[in-house]
């Protein structure tokens, strides 16, 4: 099976998915004002989860909270643990300390049987710091991994891995944008785990390329890459499947609050497997072909003008 000769197909598939991701982000931005559904960790604001008896409707809760005059409030009801109770999520923009106290006291005074299950408030400065830290962490991780792969393998390998990785990150972010999952600080964990895992997956294939290049030094590079992909195919798929099974278990059986986290990881793992088999290695082949072409042009030039003596310059 010759996978490498169809490299344009593989890259095209990725191109389409990346374009779709960009479209989802753009659509999200046009429709809701923000490309991603950022939670209070990033935007600041507060969220209160309360439990009430099930005969109380969403609009009743909304009415009471609007009576407190604390600005733009979103009330959402979710099923409770038993049929007799119902949970409500109340989201507000950033409130002052007094307003939060007012909100909670208002809730407690208005309903008889109310329990405050959860209440979170994040001020605007924390959100800004978190955003800054997330970006810094991502850049730092990329740089470190780039150095490590350059040291252990070769610079082109590092570039191919990082490009494949960026592919995975974009696709995952696009999927999160499509499903409008709420993104909070665990999102940083998703992206960084993805960074580690996607590179790990690519390394499995690239390691084979490194080994085969030594074993079959005369063979064309594209053949070596093809051979390496086929040899590590089962391995790549199987290692990813076990991890995806674990993530799937968290997604299905875990608490709903962890769902955006496991969803992001799951998408990241699938695209990571694809990119390590079909993108990282294809990019390597393209790089190599470009180098050979450049070398041929250079050699031809040398042959044509004969005036300069052949150099030993490494290309």
């Amino acid at each position: 099976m010759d996978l490498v000769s169809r490299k344009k197909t593989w890259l095209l598939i990725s191109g389409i998915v990346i374009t779709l991701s960009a479209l989802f982000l753009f659509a999200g931005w046009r429709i809701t004002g923000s490309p991603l559904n950022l939670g209070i960790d990033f935007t600041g604001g507060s969220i209160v989860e309360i439990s009430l008896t099930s005969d109380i409707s969403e609009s009743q809760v909304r009415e009471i909270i609007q009576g407190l005059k604390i600005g733009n409030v979103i009330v959402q009801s979710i099923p409770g643990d038993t049929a007799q109770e119902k949970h409500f999520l109340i989201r507000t923009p950033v409130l002052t300390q007094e307003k939060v106290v007012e909100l909670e006291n208002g809730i407690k005074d208005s309903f008889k049987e109310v329990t405050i299950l959860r209440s979170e408030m994040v001020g605007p400065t924390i959100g800004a710091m978190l955003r800054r830290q997330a970006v810094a962490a991502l850049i730092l991780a990329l740089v470190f991994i780039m150095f490590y792969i350059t040291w252990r393998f070769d610079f082109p390998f590092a570039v191919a891995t990082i490009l494949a990785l960026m592919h995975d990150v974009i696709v995952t972010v696009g999927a999160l944008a499509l499903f409008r999952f709420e993104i909070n600080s665990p999102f940083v964990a998703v992206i960084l785990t993805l960074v580690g895992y996607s590179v790990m997956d690519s390394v499995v294939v690239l390691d084979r390329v490194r080994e085969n290049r030594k074993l079959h030094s005369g063979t064309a590079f594209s053949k070596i890459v093809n051979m390496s992909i086929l040899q590590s195919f089962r391995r790549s798929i199987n290692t990813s499947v076990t991890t995806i099974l674990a993530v799937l278990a968290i997604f299905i059986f875990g608490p709903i609050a962890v769902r955006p986290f496991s969803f992001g990881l799951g998408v990241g793992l699938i695209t990571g497997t694809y990119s390590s088999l079909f993108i990282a290695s294809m990019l390597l082949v393209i790089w190599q072909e470009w180098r050979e072409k450049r070398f041929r042009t250079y050699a031809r030039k040398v042959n044509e003008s004969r005036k300069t003596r052949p150099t030993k310059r490494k290309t």
Partner: protein
Amino acid sequence: MRKFNWKWSVVLFMILLSTMVVWTGDPVSKYVPALSLEYKPQLGLDIAGGIHIVLEAVDTPEVTVEEADVRAIEQVLRGRVDALGLTEPNIYRLGGEAWRRIIVELPYEEKAGIKDPAEAMELIGKTALLEFKAEDGTVLITGKYLRTARATTDEMGSPAVGFEFDEARAKADGQKTFEEITSEHLNKTISIVLDGEVISSPRVESVITGGEGIIKGNFTFDEAARLSALLRGGALPVKVVIAETRFLGPALGYDYLKKVEFAGVAAFILVALFMAFNYKYLSIISMFSLSTFLLFLMAILLSLKATLTIPGIAGIVLSLGMAVDASIIIFERIREEVMQGRNVRTAINNGYKKAFSTIFDSNVTTLIGTLILYQFGTGPVRGFAVTLSLGTLVSLFVTLFVGRLLMDAVGIKYLVPLTLKMRRQ
């Protein structure tokens, strides 16, 4: 039986030790108290319930915050929280960029605990600046010179806060100043102001010499007790805002825990089934490795007294999925070697040797990610980074050392030939 070398003793010893640490009944300390291995899992606030508050000292036109101020705030907060009688409060300053921030974590407690964030903010976020002001608004004396304050009752029997100014000290004499103030403002009203809010405006009827007095207001007993605790603890030296609060009632947290544990069990079974289906008898080795992996990881986390959070458990489940990766890489290598016609022993040796660099490189990249996550993350995200990075290290050890031992013991003779013969047919 000469295969029972020192490596086996090391593994068996580790398994025994880990079992004792993880065992909830703690069989050891019952008989040998000196060797107590009683480790209880420390549950994070996102499981056990409780409140997490981030306070930030902010500059005002008059005062610029210095590190000493933040340290003083920490002390004052400690005093206030201790006054509540909570068993395990956690108060600490953040370093680096966030040096102005202080974190207060109060686990949920049935008694004396804080039941909702509003209550906590009342206690934690109050500046508690007590001022006595003259009719024209000038500040006469502040709570800085108080020696103590306690809940008491007024002559009508309603709750009030009794206070007592300090005797002469190095800087100022609270009692004497108070005496002067009361004589100066005899038959005038003085406002007692807390954080800018007038609590009461009594008329000074006589000169107070002992420095004692009471604040009347429409207090309940609880309010009077809490206010006197605040006054005893002293005022915060600079303005403080609450930057973040997270409160979780205990019901929701334990529900989360149950679900995540169930997810963990489900993940283990799914992975086991997948391995059994794909690698037949060889999967016994990976399942044994995986079980010891979980055992060791739990034992390490418990003995490090790591706090278990929901993202932390998710990290364990994820590293469970990744721990099998190394086994798969090795099994596939052995399979290839056998296909190339090597005998079982050589195939296993080569398989491990060739798989090593792949396993090593791929795990290092995961570790780079988790270490950076630890460095940058806060709270729950850190928990995830800790479990995932420890999980990666433990899985390396378990697959390359424990798995290898088992492979040499039973793999060469039974498992590899049995599995691969079945494949060839």
